[in-house]
């Protein structure tokens, strides 16, 4: 038998569930991963990625040395492989990076920087990142991929109740009564959460309402499945609300005590009958009524959603339509209820919490708020920019128009994750300076001028915050490869050099001995974190913020007494068509998303054993469509949109409805975002990854 030399508790680096893992180490390798059965949020459960997919840590492609582009300074830049870089010392690479940043800052000012924080690195890394960008560069242009996933949910929930995080915890799931899952292929995107949801149905007689165009696995556990036409979500949920109002199934007491605008809202939606919604969505009116009654009559009702709701040109409206339902029935503010956007990345919650957004500091303290800004200015010893910065997609626009000239990218891969990649690449080619810190050379870092080798989750300490706001630790388990360093340490080193080159009289503070020092500083500036420190997490395995004091138990669920905005707000919604509808030339609707065995841009999973079980890019095609196209199962197909084309392998299945095809976005050789549309929700600026028009043909 293999005896572990050490077993290190950590947090899974993949999705937002934040599973606690034990890394079994021998000869400086993780040879086995398991999970403690007593510990939230996963109670011993893992999925294929967490248990078998962290071998990317030991992949020979890991970056081990600072790299400098051989044709440094040449524009337009082209993507290059490792052969296009030369190895450098940290001293040389950092100094060169600091000089270029300083030059651009001096020539073009703070607005010339577009920076990408990361949902994959720690809260501490992100805090230092935004401190550098805001405090040293004087820019608020810091954003991250949350913009591309849940920005619509954030915007909608801010309108409805004034807070955007998942309201209730994973631990409550197995005791649910009635719950809605919509726009979330939970078994593949949040596998471990899906087990608790299924447990509620199978073992505890909970009733599940699935609203999804695809026949996802959760439908097998559903009491009611509403299979709507893509892009018609608002109609369904507004009609459910209409039933609840018309049949007086709403929670009058809750509405009176906790909300405003009910009368106007009720009047505005009276014509949105199930029959009206049936016409738009193709879902039988009676099924909508059944779902509405089930949800309204529930002892507790919860709503879970994912990208299917938010990644849409009307993502904010989609999420608002869900918020309306919860407010109508009073299904929020109690255990087993709530508005629960399931967060994607392991630390997408934490990156936002740590200030990785253009308009807020840590825990959503607005940069435009003078008092808040003064607090940070005093602590850091500098003056800060009161103007909210640009979002991810706005930064692309600003770069296209030469306002932004340098990209600083930490652990993100925008050239896989952004829509309409051809455009994004074109912008990248024109940048004056691109600095990337990452663990692999990927589609984005191929454009870097300077590439810093960073440590993976297994080689550093710090905290991740999972989808239910639980702050959890990662710990160093294996040595960093070569000269790779922690992101925060790289940033501190870089920041201090830039400060000196800019001639700042004093540093705003980049001398941390350990990530826990960074957390202490962040907690000091953030009331919601003040009760949490690394030592406490070490003792308790994790703490749900908000947690204002050391003796506060943390907050598994929110809004028991009030909403951050005071009263919940109802919003009557219009139904608008999608940005690009199918036509004779591009007759299919394309939806994109994830599969169980891969992760986002594939940077990690494609370098893992996971790639063996799912090696090729695919497209799901309905059997009737496949017949008409002459496509057989397993056959390669060319998929074209007005923006690009990719070659993928056909899966003939009834999972996607007729007229709709589904393509996972993990495969660089066939990136789904070559096809997608750069159309955005007007409020949240989130692109629509779930609906554009494509054509298919056999290759």
């Amino acid at each position, binding site marked *: *038998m293999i005896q572990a030399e050490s077993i290190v508790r950590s947090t899974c680096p993949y999705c937002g569930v934040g599973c606690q893992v034990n890394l079994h180490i021998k000869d400086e390798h993780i040879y086995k991963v398991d999970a403690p059965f007593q510990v939230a949020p996963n109670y*011993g459960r893992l999925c294929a990625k967490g248990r078998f997919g962290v071998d990317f840590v030991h992949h020979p492609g890991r970056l081990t040395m600072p790299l400098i582009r051989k044709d440094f300074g040449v524009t337009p830049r082209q993507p290059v492989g490792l052969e296009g870089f030369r190895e450098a010392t940290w001293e040389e690479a950092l100094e060169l990076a600091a000089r270029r940043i300083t030059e651009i800052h001096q020539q073009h000012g703070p607005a010339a920087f577009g920076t990408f924080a990361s949902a994959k690195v720690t809260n501490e890394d992100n805090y230092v990142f935004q401190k550098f960008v805001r405090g040293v560069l004087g820019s608020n242009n810091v954003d991250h991929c949350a913009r591309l996933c849940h920005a619509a949910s954030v915007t909608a929930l801010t309108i409805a109740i004034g807070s955007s995080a998942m309201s209730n915890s994973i631990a409550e799931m197995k005791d649910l009564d009635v719950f809605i899952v919509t726009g979330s292929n939970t078994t593949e995107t949040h596998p471990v959460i899906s087990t608790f949801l299924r447990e509620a149905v199978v073992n505890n007689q909970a009733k599940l309402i699935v609203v999804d165009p695809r026949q996802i696995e959760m439908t097998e556990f559903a009491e009611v499945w509403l299979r709507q036409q893509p892009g018609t979500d608002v109609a369904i949920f507004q009609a459910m609300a209409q039933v609840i109002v018309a049949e007086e199934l709403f929670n009058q007491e809750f509405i009176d005590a906790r909300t405003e605008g009910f009368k106007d809202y009720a009047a505005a939606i009276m014509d949105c009958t199930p029959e009206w919604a049936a016409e738009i969505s193709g879902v039988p009116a009676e099924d909508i009524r059944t779902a509405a009654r089930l949800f309204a009559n529930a002892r507790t009702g919860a709503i879970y959603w994912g990208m299917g709701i938010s990644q849409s040109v009307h993502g904010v409206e989609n999420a608002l339509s869900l918020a309306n339902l919860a407010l109508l029935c009073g299904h929020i503010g109690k255990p087993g209820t709530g508005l629960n956007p399931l967060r994607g990345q392991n630390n997408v919650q934490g990156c936002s919490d740590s200030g990785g957004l253009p308009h807020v500091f840590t825990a959503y303290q607005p940069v435009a708020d003078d008092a808040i800004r003064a607090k940070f200015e005093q602590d850091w010893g500098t003056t800060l920019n009161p103007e909210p910065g640009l979002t991810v997609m706005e930064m692309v626009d600003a770069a296209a128009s030469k306002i932004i000239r340098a990209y600083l990218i930490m652990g993100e891969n925008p050239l896989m994750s952004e829509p309409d990649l051809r455009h994004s690449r074109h912008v990248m080619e024109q940048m004056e300076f691109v600095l990337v810190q990452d663990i692999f050379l990927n589609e984005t870092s191929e454009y870097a001028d300077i590439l810093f080798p960073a440590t993976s989750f297994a080689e550093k300490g710090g905290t991740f915050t999972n989808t239910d706001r639980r702050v959890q630790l990662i710990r160093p388990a294996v040595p960093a490869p070569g000269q790779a360093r922690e992101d925060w340490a790289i940033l501190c080193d870089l920041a201090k050099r830039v400060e000196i080159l800019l001639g700042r009289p004093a540093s705003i503070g980049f001398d941390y001995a350990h990530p826990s020092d960074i957390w202490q500083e962040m907690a000091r500036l953030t009331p919601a974190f003040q009760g949490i420190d690394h030592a406490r997490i070490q003792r308790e395995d994790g703490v749900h913020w908000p947690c204002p004091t050391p003796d506060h138990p943390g907050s598994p669920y929110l809004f028991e007494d009030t909403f951050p905005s005071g009263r919940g707000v109802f919003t009557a919604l219009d139904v608008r068509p999608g940005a690009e509808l199918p036509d004779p030339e591009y007759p299919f609707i394309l939806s994109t998303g994830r599969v169980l065995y891969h992760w986002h841009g594939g940077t990690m999973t494609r370098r893992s054993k*996971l790639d063996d079980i799912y090696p090729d890019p695919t497209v799901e095609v309905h059997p009737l469509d496949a017949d008409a196209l002459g496509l057989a199962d397993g056959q390669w197909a060319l998929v074209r949109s007005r923006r690009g084309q990719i070659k993928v392998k056909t899966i003939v299945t009834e999972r996607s409805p007729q007229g709709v095809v589904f393509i996972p976005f993990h495969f660089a050789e066939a990136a789904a975002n070559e096809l997608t549309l750069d159309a955005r929700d007007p409020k949240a600026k989130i692109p629509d990854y779930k609906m554009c028009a494509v054509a298919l043909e056999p290759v």
Partner: protein
Amino acid sequence: MTLTLTIDGREIHAPAGSSLMQAAQLADVDTPVICYHEATTPNGLCRQCVVEVDGWRVLAPACVTPAAEGMEVHTASERVTRARRTLLEMLNASIDLSQAPEIQQQMDDYQADRERFPGAERRAPAMLDDNPFYVRDYDKCLMCWRCVQACADDLQFTYALSTGGRGYNSHVTTFFDAPMPETTCVFCGNCVAVCPTNALISKTEIYLQQGLDYDSIRREKRNQRRAQDKKGGAQ
């Protein structure tokens, strides 16, 4: 509410609803278990936890027997010891327990004769290697059902596994013995995590046991990928 019972002569006050095993813990008596696992529903399969209760015709499995007021329980009587020892001996004659350190310890504790049953037919099924993540070496399987339960209503709700056969030929099976990738398996490995004997073991671990280094293990994966591509099988 608490119950008062006697375990090995010691009076114990256990909360109502305790199992005899939980009550024994209160008396600082460790109960040996094989099939029991904190994350799976106890089924009283292995009977290694049996204890003797005064007035009872047969021994009681401590994991699933509710403690009751006034019970007189003996955890080390002759009948208990014989059953535990014989069970270990019979088990050791059936399967490969070399990677079950806890059971090895129990064999030492009960002075089990590892060669007690000469000529006994071992189950000895072939190792199943049909996916990139783990192998199923059922020569080590002692039918604790944990993997089946983990796959079903105790952890994963995926239902790829079932017990099959009957009696001594009981085994864990898939639908018509389908290879794992053709089943509903999602390779969560929750089954691997609860396996007490390494009958389910990750490939990395078994290759390390076989003496491969990490680089070879990684290349092994690539080889498989190529083999798969040649077959042209879509996943």
